[in-house]
């Protein structure tokens, strides 16, 4: 018998939500067969079965909040008697032998057979007995992994047995109640929304945000794009947009200004210049902001970039991205232009140091060679962390970026 616990899927993720069970109690499963969809930080991951056997018990209901180390499913042979308390007889509560679809580092090495004392104070251990929670199954959120009273309460609230027929989560339904000021609908905040809220607050709190805005005449770029688009689309079958041009321009500029492709190790007080160009693309989804990452954008051509952006945006909206596809970015683009507006001041996607905003392209009268002409103009913004990047540097960076997108031949020359 094996108890499969919610593994550490990397990147400091320690909680998630069960989206959908793909197996039911009594089902036979084979090794690597997807068991469950779990929503973590910003992705929905499918966790594959570490073993071949029969599903004896599902430990978490659909929609339940789960924490790393929580039991998810017990797998054994069909005739095996399930003990009342699985805890004492389970195999090591470590990572499964197979990783979830495309994840980072493995969970910590399995412990030896000797049971170690759970890291909890006597008061918390007494509470665990009262709540009937097995401390060995809890991963602590306190200092150094101490199990807190709150961890226990969460486990006690969310760790009930699975319902007979797990279903996909329905859209959040609010409770409408009358108040003195009128009716108010109370809707629980989704997991993704909480994650976004925490990330945004942390970024605003930690970074010294400044936004610098410049403007570019993209008439020629749009002209080139319009001309080449049908040809490229016919040959490649990929729908071309303007975004890949901006990705290329950004990467080219990042190579010249490495601080904009860096992050900071605060503890060691060191700047980490990334030698890779993984560009995050902010995607608006019905449930909230998700930022898939285009890895090694410097080594991909416009068609490849277009195809990848389209695919990842689509999968972001259907929540099918793996964790690997939303982490490891070195700089981010938010393409807010198609939705209108003049310009915005986006929040840095930490630990990165800068985010580039692409704003609406509009035809405006401009003075060209002493004459007024109708030109396609756009604002480009960069929000940067003034702790590590000075305003003058940002101005130079933007001025070069503007030049790259204003003069496609210059961009081409650099590609």
């Amino acid at each position, binding site marked *: 018998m094996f108890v499969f616990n919610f593994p550490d899927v990397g990147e400091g993720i320690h909680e998630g939500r069960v989206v959908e069970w793909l197996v039911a109690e009594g089902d036979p499963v084979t090794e690597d067969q997807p068991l469950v969809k779990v929503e973590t930080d910003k992705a929905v991951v499918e966790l594959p079965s570490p073993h071949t056997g029969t599903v004896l018990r599902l430990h978490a209901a659909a929609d339940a909040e789960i924490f790393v180390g929580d039991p998810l499913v017990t797998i054994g042979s069909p005739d095996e008697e399930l003990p009342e308390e699985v805890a004492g007889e389970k195999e090591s509560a470590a990572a499964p032998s197979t990783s979830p679809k495309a994840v980072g580092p493995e969970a910590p090495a399995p412990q030896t057979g000797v049971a170690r004392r759970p890291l909890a104070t006597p008061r918390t251990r007494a509470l665990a007995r009262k709540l009937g929670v097995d401390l060995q199954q809890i991963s602590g959120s306190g*200092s150094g992994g101490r199990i807190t009273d709150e961890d226990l309460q969460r486990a006690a609230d969310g760790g009930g047995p699975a319902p007979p027929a797990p279903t996909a989560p329905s859209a959040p339904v609010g409770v409408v109640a009358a108040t003195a000021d009128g009716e108010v609908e109370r809707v629980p905040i989704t997991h993704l929304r909480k994650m976004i809220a925490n990330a945004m607050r942390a970024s605003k709190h930690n970074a010294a945000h400044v936004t610098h805005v410049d403007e570019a005449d993209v008439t020629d770029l749009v002209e080139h794009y319009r001309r080449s688009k049908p040809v490229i689309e016919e040959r490649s079958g990929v729908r071309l947009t303007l975004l890949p041009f901006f990705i290329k321009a950004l990467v080219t500029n990042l190579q010249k200004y490495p601080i904009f492709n860096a992050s900071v190790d605060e503890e060691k007080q060191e700047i980490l210049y990334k030698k890779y160009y993984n560009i995050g693309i902010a995607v608006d989804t019905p449930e909230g902001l998700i930022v898939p990452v285009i890895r090694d954008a410097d080594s991909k051509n416009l068609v490849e970039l277009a195809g990848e952006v389209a695919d990842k945006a689509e999968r972001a909206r259907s929540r099918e991205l793996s964790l690997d596809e939303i982490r490891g970015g070195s700089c981010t683009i938010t393409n807010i232009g198609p939705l209108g507006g003049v310009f915005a001041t986006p929040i840095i996607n930490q630990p990165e140091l800068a985010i580039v905003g692409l704003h609406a392209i509009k035809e405006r009268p401009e003075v060209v060679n002493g004459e007024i002409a109708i030109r396609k103009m756009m604002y480009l913004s960069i929000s940067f962390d003034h702790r590590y990047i000075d305003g003058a540097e940002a101005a130079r960076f933007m001025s070069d970026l503007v030049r790259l997108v204003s003069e496609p031949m210059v961009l081409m020359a650099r590609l």
Partner: protein
Amino acid sequence: MVVGSVSRGCQVVVIGAGPGGYVAAIRLAQLGKDVILVEKNATLGGVCLNVGCIPSKALIHASELAHEVAHAENMGLSIEGLSVDLPKMVEWKDGIVERLTSGVAFLCKQNGVEVVHGAAEFVSDRKLVVASEDDRVEIEFEQAVIATGSRPMALDGFPHDGEKIIGSTEALSLQSVPERLVVIGAGYIGLELGTVYAKLGSKVSIVEFLPKVMPDLDAEVGKALTRQLKKLKVGLHLSHRAESFEPGDPSVVVARGPKDEELRFDADVVMMSVGRLPNVEGLGLDAAGVTTDEKGFITVNDKMQTSAPGIYAIGDVVGGALLAHKAYQEAKVAAGVIAGEPAAFDSLVPAVIYTDPEVAWVGLGEGEAKEQGHNVVTGSFPFKASGRAMSLDSTDGFVKAIADADTKQLLGVVAVGRGVSEFIGEATLALEMGAFLEDVALTIHPHPTMSEALQEAIEGALGQAVHMVNK
């Protein structure tokens, strides 16, 4: 039913009024239970108060004081004509015992615990009989707590007579200091009382079957104890089997050494301290359906429940560390479970040996920590480097901290030195709270105290000790 017997009923009966039994009875009464406490002896308090922890500590302190003032020339103190009046010392000790045992009786009374004197025997899983010289009382109970404790083990060929061959009980009430005392067994009782009589002037020889003193503890502990015994001119004979006893004046203890050689020790008194046995005989455990392990200790789970539903057992009679404070905690767990609370025993048990220097430890030793798969780091601070130890003229010993090198979690502490018993409780608290090395390192320890050594040892494990050179 025997003529003249009385039949009684209660919710809970507790058998044995030692540290386990009286605490269980008082706590049960506090939780609203109707409790009868059965005690075979005339006084409450068990071995601990009457013939164990407390009286031995009284004599240890008195003998230490005598030894200290007699060896204080280097501090400029010369005492002429120091004499030891052992009967007076024993009388002082008896006064302490009297105060404490009557204190327990007072607490029982105030909490509404009824005490019945006599020997208890189960006749079923819901009834027992308490027999005394005067009467026989039948007690029907809903639940029972067995807390009958332990007694010294005997050794073949050494018949206990209370005069020439004694146990720890008599050793606490001798009327004169024996000229030659042979102690059989170098466990904590043998070491503690052997040291007492060495300090009071006896020529002490300790005969131990095992090749090491305190073999389960850190090797440094045994070394420190051996060194001090040598200073006290105690003969320590390890790997020696005590074979026979020849009564006489003096008597002779015959022992066999590691090379099969025979050794003869002249003895005015022989003290046996070769281990302890659970008090289960005559209890009627079979009638109650209570099972024991192969050594006779009652088997219990972490709720102190025996194999018989409704019957609990606590203290020495369940084995493990035979220590009063373990019994206290088990008593509270049993009382809690009986009262319907979700109690269970999951505490660390610190231990202290009141030798000179004292030895105290809690949590995992270095070897145990490695066995559990920890990547171990240790830090050790010698009292030689402690200002407080120097000012006490007691620089023997050290404090050693054992921790997980990766997580920096504290796993255990071993301490040898004067007064270390007083701060092993701090180490226990640190472990119970799941402390990391930094937690203790960042806690101010008052200066100058012996407890600073704990902080220094832990800083040493972090490679940050200030008052010694880091390894």
